[in-house]
């Protein structure tokens, strides 16, 4: 699945090839920036949920949207709530993007792929790395 979003100044692209995408990368590569832009009001991005340090406390483990294959759910700052992510990701059907700094201590099941960010002056894209 490829999802793209363009603004006047930047292009964003997600090349998603797994139900669970693990994004482990260093600071300031544009990860949070990209997913926040996609969440913005001008973005008609469809069935999309974004959780980060600000709202992860509001995650409802029984939310039906996690069981809906059409939803894309992003867990940013997931180092802060690895227990919640580990409980949700292996047992649901939507597509997850999990952004962490350190992978240890998190359980994503068997069907995840490793992803990375490629960026240049006008593009940020998430692509499969392994």
């Amino acid at each position, binding site marked *: 699945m490829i999802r793209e979003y363009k603004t006047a*100044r*930047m292009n964003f692209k997600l090349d998603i090839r797994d139900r669970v995408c693990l994004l482990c*990368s*260093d*600071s*300031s590569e*544009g990860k*949070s*920036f990209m997913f*926040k832009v996609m969440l913005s009001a001008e973005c008609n991005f469809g069935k999309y949920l974004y959780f*980060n*340090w*600000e709202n992860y406390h509001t995650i409802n483990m029984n939310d039906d949207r996690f069981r809906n294959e059409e939803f894309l759910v992003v867990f940013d*700052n997931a*180092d*802060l709530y690895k227990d919640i992510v580990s409980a949700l990701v292996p047992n649901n059907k939507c597509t997850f993007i999990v952004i962490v*700094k*350190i992978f240890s201590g998190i359980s994503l099941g068997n069907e995840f792929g490793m992803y990375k960010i490629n*960026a240049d*002056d*006008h593009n940020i894209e998430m692509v499969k790395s392994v």
Partner: protein
Amino acid sequence: MAIHLYYEEEYIPSDLKIVKENDKYFRDHIIFRDTPEVRRVLENLEQAEYVNEYSFISKKWRQMGPRPIEDLSTGCKTVLNIILSEETETTCFLPIECGKLAWNEILKLNAGHSLIRVCSVIVPRNETYDIEFNGKHFSDISLFVLEVNKLDKGIQDGEDEF
């Protein structure tokens, strides 16, 4: 003054406040000031420049114009918390969301409290550091790395490695 580093959370002195959510602390407590140290961190971690108390500009994506400081990476905010907090001597900022680059910026500081992070040390070897760790002061980064490795291997002072 020195940057005080602890091997694990259990070694943090009980009188220190612990901050895990560095984005939240940055939003609620930090006044983003223009200092040489702040400019260095912005340059090294974000390839960015200070604009004013509320914004920065990315050199990579200059066409985006000035951006709000909430858009700084969490790793960068963690380092800035240690530098700019008025509570820096009484607070330990956990580097839970620091990548390699951000944690190595912490090694260059000369005040505050944080934890050891499992990642490569990539700071220059020929500079002088101001690190307190495991009851000792380190100005040589190589000796600091040796001390961390000793603890990783469970070796006590006075024992040989073999």
